[in-house]
């Protein structure tokens, strides 16, 4: 059965989704268990697949038994296998961490939410592992459509934001589809490996030899940029993620942009070769400028925000700039940085969005509500510190290493503006998070006055500290904290495993001659 692992990563999610839907009428109480079981099964299969791929080398799975150019194939190489494990793990963590949140956010519609959630995860995982350009489009739509729906529930503006997201997302997906059409009209194939071979034959000396192929690349890029919210196409992203209910944002926000960046990398590596993809200097320069602008824009807009989740959304924008910029530095280090950052950023944003969900529940998401956070929610706050340190780029957290590779790529490519933007963004991140820490460390909770008289005598210390708020006063139950702690710890673990990840995952899929 090990040969069937690629499909077994996705099948549980599909069947889980249908079972949960039917379960609405048949076994309502067990629905949550069924959904988490499906996620866990998928995660287990992904991990097994990753282990298998890392030990035995890449595998190609023929769906329907048809060999690749004719049928659709699943390509499980080290990169996609690891990405699968990350995506399913992230989804599992989110799901486990937000049980109570889901039940209160979507009363009476739990099972619909579970089904949408599972299908969204299935879509994202499919995107990661598919080897067919058109299948990718369908999966993008699966992932996106469920995203639109689950992001629509929330505060007053959520609906409008979600509709905007739908418009922009469909536009991006359609642009991608158009780009695939360009490729198809020039090559007659849809399979990525096949496409790569034919493109190599058609334009032996880079994409600039063919207007149509260069245009295909441009259109696909435009579509992906729209989907991942790169700077000029970003306006939907903060709105969509910050107004929705917390579990939806915690699922969609970490996954979508990262998976799209993954698609970008996939496109560079498996459809166009890196040489071809970087072959049009004008496009490279333009994209680097956009990425730099995205980093700066995201960082400085984040400075202006007054609530945690909104701030995270803008940080997300600048992280998108990291990934896109790194992919177009045109050297090995930059691409390594992008790939590594996809994983690292997935963990970081997951951690921070889970923290944001907890904080919103416990104290309220606005900065002004977070006084005394370190006493009221120590575990959550600790996770926040870890996530923040990683975002700032403190070693040994994983955020440091992606920044390391990106910076060294930028320096090697002599793209000093991008390097400068990276450094500035790190500094701004430090400011952003330490602002929160200060509030949490020094500030008093808004309702502190009511607590003051019953607290222990304040004269003990005599210093101006915010006084005795009981420890753990607003902390979440352990069921929500355990996944969060796991994710936060994984930031360090991943940082320490950087060498292995680069050696086992990134190096094998980069072409050997890449400078």
């Amino acid at each position, binding site marked *: 059965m090990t040969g069937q692992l690629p499909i077994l990563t996705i099948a549980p999610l599909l069947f889980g989704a249908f079972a949960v839907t039917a379960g609405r009428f048949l076994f309502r109480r067990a629905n949550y268990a069924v959904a988490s079981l499906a996620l866990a099964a998928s995660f287990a299969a992904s991990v097994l697949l990753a282990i298998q791929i890392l030990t035995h080398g890449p595998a190609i799975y023929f769906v329907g038994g048809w060999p690749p150019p004719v049928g659709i194939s699943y390509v499980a190489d080290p990169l996609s296998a690891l990405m699968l494990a990350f995506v399913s793990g992230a989804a599992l963590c989110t799901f486990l961490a937000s049980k109570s949140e889901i039940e209160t956010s979507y009363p009476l519609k739990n099972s619909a939410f579970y089904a949408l959630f599972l299908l969204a995860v299935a879509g994202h995982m499919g995107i990661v592992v598919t080897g067919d350009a058109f299948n990718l489009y369908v999966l993008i739509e699966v992932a996106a*459509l469920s995203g639109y729906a689950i992001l629509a529930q929330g505060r007053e503006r959520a609906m*409008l934001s979600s509709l905007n997201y739908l418009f922009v997302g469909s536009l991006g997906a359609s642009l991608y589809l158009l780009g695939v059409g360009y490729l198809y009209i020039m090559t007659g194939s*849809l399979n990525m490996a096949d496409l790569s071979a034919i493109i190599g034959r058609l334009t032996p000396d880079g994409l600039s030899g063919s207007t149509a192929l260069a245009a295909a690349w441009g259109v696909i890029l435009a579509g992906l940029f729209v989907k991942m919210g790169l700077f000029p196409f970003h306006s939907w992203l903060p709105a969509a993620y910050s107004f929705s209910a917390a579990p939806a944002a915690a699922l969609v926000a970490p996954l979508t942009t990262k998976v799209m960046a993954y698609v970008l990398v996939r496109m560079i590596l498996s459809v166009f070769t890196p040489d071809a993809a970087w072959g049009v200097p004008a496009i490279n320069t333009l994209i680097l400028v956009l990425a730099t602008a995205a980093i700066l824009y995201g960082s400085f807009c984040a400075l202006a925000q007054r609530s945690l989740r909104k701030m995270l959304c803008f940080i997300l924008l600048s992280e998108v700039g990291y990934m896109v910029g790194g992919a177009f530095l045109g050297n090995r280090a930059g691409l390594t940085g992008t790939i590594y950052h996809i994983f690292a950023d997935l963990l970081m944003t997951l951690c921070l969005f889970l923290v944001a969900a907890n904080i919103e529940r416990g104290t309220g998401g606005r900065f002004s509500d977070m006084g005394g956070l370190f006493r009221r929610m120590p575990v959550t706050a600790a996770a926040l510190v870890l996530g923040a340190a990683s975002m700032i780029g403190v070693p040994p957290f994983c955020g440091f290493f992606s920044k390391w590779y990106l910076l060294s790529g930028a320096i090697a490519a002599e793209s000093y503006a991008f390097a400068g933007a990276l450094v500035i963004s790190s500094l701004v991140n430090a400011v952003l998070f330490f602002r929160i820490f200060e509030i949490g460390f020094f500030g008093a909770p808004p309702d502190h006055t009511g607590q003051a008289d019953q607290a222990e005598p304040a004269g003990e210390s005599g210093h101006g500290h915010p006084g005795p708020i009981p420890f753990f006063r607003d902390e979440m139950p352990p069921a929500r904290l355990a996944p969060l702690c796991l994710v936060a710890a994984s930031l360090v673990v991943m940082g320490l495993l950087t060498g292995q990840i680069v050696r086992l995952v990134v190096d094998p899929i980069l072409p050997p001659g890449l400078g």
Partner: protein
Amino acid sequence: MHELLAEFGNKFHYYGYFAIMMIGLYAMIAKTNLLKKCIGLGIFQTAIMLFYVSIGAKEGAGIPILDPAVGTADPAAYANPLPHVLMLTAIVVSVATLGVALALVQNIHRDHGTLEEDEILQRLRGK
């Protein structure tokens, strides 16, 4: 000039599709009414489908269903079925998207009483 015309004659359909695509895009960018945006999205997606299906067209070829009278399958005699399959999928996806969009539009109208995006934003800002 003549060559240009010939070129145009050979490629006119592409220009037509791009024109339709741009009409849809214009509606999505410039129109403030949400349903109009939905329509624009539909137009945009349809243009891409047209583009695909035209790839499958083949001179002197019939519909991509085996003619029992002929019996053998000569690739030149049948249109390319692959784009048709792809676009079947795309049509379904676009209908699905339309359904979700309409659901969202209805809820927005229920909450705000209007479908004009600028008015809704104004209301939200006013609060």
